[in-house]
C-alpha cells in the first residue's frame, strides 16, 4: 500500500516535534517531506542566547542532524521557503521551484520579530533576533563595531543585550515602560533586575520611545545605521540596532492560501485548521484567541497534533499556562501566571533588598495564581506545579514562602538547591548521577522533560527523591522552555487517560478483566506495558472485588510468586508474625527450614519479623510447605506489618494493650492489596516506641483511648503522620483505620503511598470522609471487610495446588 504524504512547512522546533512524536507512535504511516527556509537542520532556538553569550556553539544546539532525517527517510529541503500552497491540487511550492504533493499538510512557520515601522528601520545594521543568522550577524558586528542599541527591555531584548555586552560592545537598552520585563515582573523585581544588569555594565533608558533611526549618508558605511533618535531628541550612537519589541505569528503563507487566519492561523483543539487536511502548530497559530511564544506550549500542541495525524484521534489541546525565566547567567528570575493581582487576590511577599532576594506569590481562592521570584528561584518549579494543578494551599500556607521543604530527603546529602551545587556533586544517590552529567545531557541531547532526563541519565528514575532537584536543573537549563509535568498526567504512553479517568471508566463500564478494559478505553498497545498493566490489575481488583479477574502476568514478579526478588535473582521469604509476636515453636521451625535449605542469611527486619534471604525460586514452594506459616506479604503493594510496642501487658509505662490491638489489626486486614505498601504501628503510650509517627496509620494509646495518625512515611522523604482523631475503643480504631485505608484503596493512584494521596486530596477531605460522615465511614469499612472475605494464605494455596503453578519449576535439558 502506498503511504500517505505528509508535508511539513517549517523546520523549527514545533514542526519537528510533531514529526518526532509521530515517528514514535506511527512510524510507517507517512512519507514525510520537510521544508525549512534556514540553511540548518532543526536546532534549539531557545539556546541562541547562550550561543550569543559564548556559552554554547551552534553545533551544541542542533537537535536533529541531517543524518537523523536520512535515517528516518525524511526528505529535507533547507534554504527552501515555501511561498505557495495549492489546496485544490494539494501541492506546495518553494521559492526555488521545489514542490511536494501532500495528503496532510502541517504548517509550522513560527513567528517573526516585529520591526517598528519607524524611519530608518530598513537601514543596514538594524536586525531582529530570531535565528542563527541574526546571532551570527551580532557576533560579527561586535568584532568590528562598538555601539549597540537594543530596542525593547523584554526577555529577548535583555538576553540580546547581555550577549552583545559579553561580545565586547557598549550596549544601551531602550524600553518604553517604567521597568524592565513588565510582562513578567512587577516593579520591585524589575528594578532589582535593572540594578543587577547595570552592575554587569549594561545601560538602560526607560520610559523612552524611539523616533527614528539615522543612517550614514556617505562614505564607507553609507546606508548603515549610525544613531538612534528618541522622541525627546536624544541621540544615541549605534552601529547595531536590535529590535526586540515583540514577535508576530508568521501566517502570511497560510493566509495567502485562503486558510482562515485571525492574528495567527486559527486552529481547533486538535490543531486542525479550517481545511481538514491542514494542521498547524507553534508560534504561527491562534488557539482560542491566544498565540504562544514559548516552547513548552508548542510541545503540548505537537503531542496532540501527532496523535491526530497518526489517526488515533485522541487528545485535545486546551491551552497552556506558561512560565518564564531569563537566560542571563548569574541572574535568577522566574515568573508565572498572573503576578500583578487585583482586588480579590492576596499577596505573600518576601523582600530582602540587600540580599537580592524577592519572592511574591499571588493567591486567589486558596490557590496560587501567579508568582514572581528574583534572586532565589529554586522553588519556581514547585510553585508553578501548584499553580497548574490548582492545588489548595491553606494547609501549607504558613510555610509556603520558605519553599518546598526537601530537607529530610535522603540520598543527596540534604542538598535541595540545584543552583548551589557544583557539577561534580551527586544529584541521584541511587544511580550515581552528578549535576554535570544531567546538564550535559539536557544540552547535548536536547531534553525538555523530566521523563527525557530520567530515560537518558537514569537520574530520578529509581526512588525518585531527587526529582525536585532534577526539575530545578532542567528549569534552569531550559528557561522558558520548561514545563513541569501536570500531576494529572496519563497513566503511561499506552493511553492518554489519567489514573482517575481509568478508575472512573472501570467503575462505569464494569470492566472485569484487563483485555476488556484496554479495548473499552482504546489502549494504544495490544497488551499495555510494565507500567499500566499492574495499575489496571489493581484498579480492577479494588473496584470489583470477588468479580474482577486477577491477572498474575500483570503483577510485578514479587506479587506473582509471593516473595521478594533480590539482586542475584534469588528470593526472600518472610512469614507473618502478627504484631511482631512469635513463639519458641515458630522460631524452631524457622531455624530448621533455614538449615534445611541452607539459607545464606537470616535477618530480623525493621517490621519485627524474620527474613530468610537468598532462597532459590525452585525451593520456594517446598520451603513454604515446611514452614507452614502464613505469608507476611513483605513483597506486596498491600498490608505489610503492624509494628507494636510491648504495651500495658508488661511495660511499666503502658496505658493500653498495644500488642493485642496490633495483632487484631494485622489479622483483620491480612491479605489486603493496596495502591502501595501499607504499614501500621501501635504504641501503648505517647513514648511511641513503635514509631507510629512515620506509618501510614499510626496509633498511640493514651489513658483515655487511642489517637489515630495517618499519612506518615519513614522512607525516601520522612513524613510525620498527621493527627486524624481520637477514639475510645479498640473496635473503633479498627473501624476508623479500616475506613481510611479503604478510601485510600478506592481513590489513590496506583503507587501512591497514603502520604502522597493525602497531599493531593488534603487532610480535610480525609476527615470529612472518615469523621464527619459516620455512615460513609461504616460503609467504607464494610466494603473493606467484604473485599477481604475469604482471602487465604497464598503460600498454602501454592503448596496445595502445586501443579497449577508450573512457573516455579525449572525445565532441565541434557545439553
Amino acid at each position, binding site marked *: 500500500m502506498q503511504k500517505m504524504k505528509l508535508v511539513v512547512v517549517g523546520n523549527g522546533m514545533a514542526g519537528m516535534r510533531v514529526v518526532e512524536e509521530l515517528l514514535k507512535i506511527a512510524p510507517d504511516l507517512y512519507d514525510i517531506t520537510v521544508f525549512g527556509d534556514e540553511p540548518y537542520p532543526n536546532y534549539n532556538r531557545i539556546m541562541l542566547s547562550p550561543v550569543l553569550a559564548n556559552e554554547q556553539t551552534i553545533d551544541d544546539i542542533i537537535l536533529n542532524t541531517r543524518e537523523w532525517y536520512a535515517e528516518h527517510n525524511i526528505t529535507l529541503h533547507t534554504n527552501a521557503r515555501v511561498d505557495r500552497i495549492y489546496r485544490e491540487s494539494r501541492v506546495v511550492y518553494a521559492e526555488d521551484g521545489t514542490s511536494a504533493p501532500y495528503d496532510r499538510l502541517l504548517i509550522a512557520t513560527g513567528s517573526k520579530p516585529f520591526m517598528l515601522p519607524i524611519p530608518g528601520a530598513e537601514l543596514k545594521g538594524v536586525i531582529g533576533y530570531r535565528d542563527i543568522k541574526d546571532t551570527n550577524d551580532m557576533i560579527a558586528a561586535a568584532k568590528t563595531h562598538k555601539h549597540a542599541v537594543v530596542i525593547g527591555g523584554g526577555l529577548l531584548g535583555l538576553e540580546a543585550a547581555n550577549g552583545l555586552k559579553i561580545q565586547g560592545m557598549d550596549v544601551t537598552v531602550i524600553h518604553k515602560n517604567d521597568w524592565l520585563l513588565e510582562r513578567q515582573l512587577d516593579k520591585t523585581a524589575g528594578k532589582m533586575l535593572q540594578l543587577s544588569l547595570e552592575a554587569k555594565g549594561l545601560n538602560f533608558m526607560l520610559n523612552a520611545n524611539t523616533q527614528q533611526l539615522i543612517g550614514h549618508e556617505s562614505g564607507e558605511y553609507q546606508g548603515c545605521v549610525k544613531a538612534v533618535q528618541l522622541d525627546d531628541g536624544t541621540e544615541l550612537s549605534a552601529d547595531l540596532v536590535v529590535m526586540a519589541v515583540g514577535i508576530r505569528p508568521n501566517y502570511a503563507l497560510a493566509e495567502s492560501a485562503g486558510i482562515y487566519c485571525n492574528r495567527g492561523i486559527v486552529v481547533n483543539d486538535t490543531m486542525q485548521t479550517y481545511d481538514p487536511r491542514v494542521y498547524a502548530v507553534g508560534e504561527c497559530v491562534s488557539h482560542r484567541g491566544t498565540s504562544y511564544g514559548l516552547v513548552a506550549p508548542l510541545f503540548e500542541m505537537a503531542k496532540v497534533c501527532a496523535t491526530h495525524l497518526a489517526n488515533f484521534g485522541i487528545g485535545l489541546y486546551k491551552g497552556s499556562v506558561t512560565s518564564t525565566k531569563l537566560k542571563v547567567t548569574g541572574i535568577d528570575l522566574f515568573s508565572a501566571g498572573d503576578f500583578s493581582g487585583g482586588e480579590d487576590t492576596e499577596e505573600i511577599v518576601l523582600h530582602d533588598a540587600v540580599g537580592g532576594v524577592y519572592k511574591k506569590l499571588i493567591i486567589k481562592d486558596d490557590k496560587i495564581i501567579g508568582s514572581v521570584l528574583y534572586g532565589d528561584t529554586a522553588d519556581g518549579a514547585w510553585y508553578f506545579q501548584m499553580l497548574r494543578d490548582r492545588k489548595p494551599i491553606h494547609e501549607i500556607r504558613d510555610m509556603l514562602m520558605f519553599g518546598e521543604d526537601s530537607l529530610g530527603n535522603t540520598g543527596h546529602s540534604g542538598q535541595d538547591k540545584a543552583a548551589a551545587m557544583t557539577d561534580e556533586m551527586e544529584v541521584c544517590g541511587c544511580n550515581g548521577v552528578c549535576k554535570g552529567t544531567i546538564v550535559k545531557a539536557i544540552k547535548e541531547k536536547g531534553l525538555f522533560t523530566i521523563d527525557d532526563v530520567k530515560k537518558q541519565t537514569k537520574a530520578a528514575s529509581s526512588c525518585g527523591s531527587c526529582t525536585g532537584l532534577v526539575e530545578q536543573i532542567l528549569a534552569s537549563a531550559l528557561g522558558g522552555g520548561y514545563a513541569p509535568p501536570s500531576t494529572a498526567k496519563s497513566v503511561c504512553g499506552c493511553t492518554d487517560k489519567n489514573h482517575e479517568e481509568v478508575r472512573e471508566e472501570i467503575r462505569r463500564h464494569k470492566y472485569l478483566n484487563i483485555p476488556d478494559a484496554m479495548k473499552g478505553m482504546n489502549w494504544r498497545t495490544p497488551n499495555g*506495558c510494565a507500567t499500566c498493566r499492574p495499575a489496571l490489575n489493581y484498579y480492577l481488583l479494588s473496584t470489583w472485588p470477588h468479580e474482577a479477574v486477577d491477572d498474575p502476568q500483570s503483577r510485578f514478579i514479587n506479587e506473582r510468586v509471593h516473595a521478594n526478588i533480590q539482586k542475584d535473582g534469588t528470593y526472600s521469604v518472610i512469614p507473618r508474625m502478627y504484631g511482631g509476636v512469635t513463639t519458641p515453636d515458630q522460631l524452631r521451625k524457622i531455624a530448621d527450614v533455614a538449615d534445611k535449605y541452607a539459607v545464606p542469611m537470616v535477618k530480623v527486619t525493621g517490621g519485627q519479623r524474620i527474613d530468610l534471604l537468598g532462597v532459590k525460586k525452585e525451593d520456594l514452594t517446598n520451603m513454604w510447605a515446611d514452614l507452614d506459616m502464613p505469608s507476611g506479604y513483605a513483597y506486596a503493594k498491600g498490608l505489610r506489618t503492624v509494628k507494636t510496642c510491648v504495651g500495658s501487658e508488661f511495660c511499666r509505662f503502658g496505658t493500653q494493650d498495644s500488642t493485642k490491638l496490633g495483632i487484631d489489626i494485622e489479622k483483620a486486614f491480612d491479605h489486603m492489596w493496596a495502591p502501595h505498601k501499607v504499614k501500621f504501628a501501635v504504641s501503648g503510650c505517647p513514648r511511641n516506641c513503635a514509631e507510629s509517627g512515620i506509618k501510614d496509620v499510626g496509633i498511640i494509646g493514651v489513658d483515655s483511648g487511642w489517637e489515630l495518625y495517618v499519612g506518615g512515611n519513614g522512607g525516601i522523604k520522612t513524613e510525620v503522620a498527621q493527627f486524624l482523631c481520637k477514639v475510645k475503643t479498640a473496635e473503633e480504631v479498627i473501624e476508623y483505620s479500616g475506613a481510611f485505608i479503604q478510601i485510600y484503596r478506592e481513590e489513590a493512584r496506583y503507587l501512591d503511598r497514603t502520604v502522597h494521596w493525602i497531599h493531593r486530596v488534603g487532610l480535610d477531605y480525609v476527615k470529612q470522609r472518615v469523621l464527619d460522615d459516620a455512615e460513609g465511614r461504616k460503609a467504607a469499612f464494610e466494603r473493606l471487610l467484604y473485599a477481604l472475605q475469604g482471602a487465604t494464605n497464598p503460600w498454602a494455596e501454592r503448596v496445595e495446588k502445586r501443579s497449577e503453578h508450573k512457573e516455579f519449576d525449572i525445565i532441565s535439558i541434557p545439553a
Partner: protein
Amino acid sequence: MSSWIKIVPLGDIPKLGSRVVRSSKGDIAVFRTEDDKVFALHDKCPHKGGPLSQGIVYGDKVACPLHSWQIHLADGHAVEPDEGQTACFAVKVEDGSVYLEI
C-alpha cells in the same frame, strides 16, 4: 553441533509469561507473547544480570524485574536509550510443542 530440543508443550508457558530452561549454556528464558509467538533469551539482563524470565512481558518486549530495563524479545537488544544486548536462541513451535536450538 546445535540441535533442536523439545522443551514443553506451548500451554505450559503462560501467555505474557515465561519458563526457565537450565542448560549447559546457562539459564535460558523462553517467553510466550499474547499472540503465541515464542522467543528465547539468555536469562540475564545486559544491565546488571537480572533474570529476565521474571519480568513483565508486553508486546514483544520484557521489562527486567530489577531495574525495569526493557529488552526486545526478538534480538535481545535493550530499548533505547539504554544500551546492551543479551544473547538470543532459536526457538520454534511445532505440533503444539516448543523446541529450542542449543
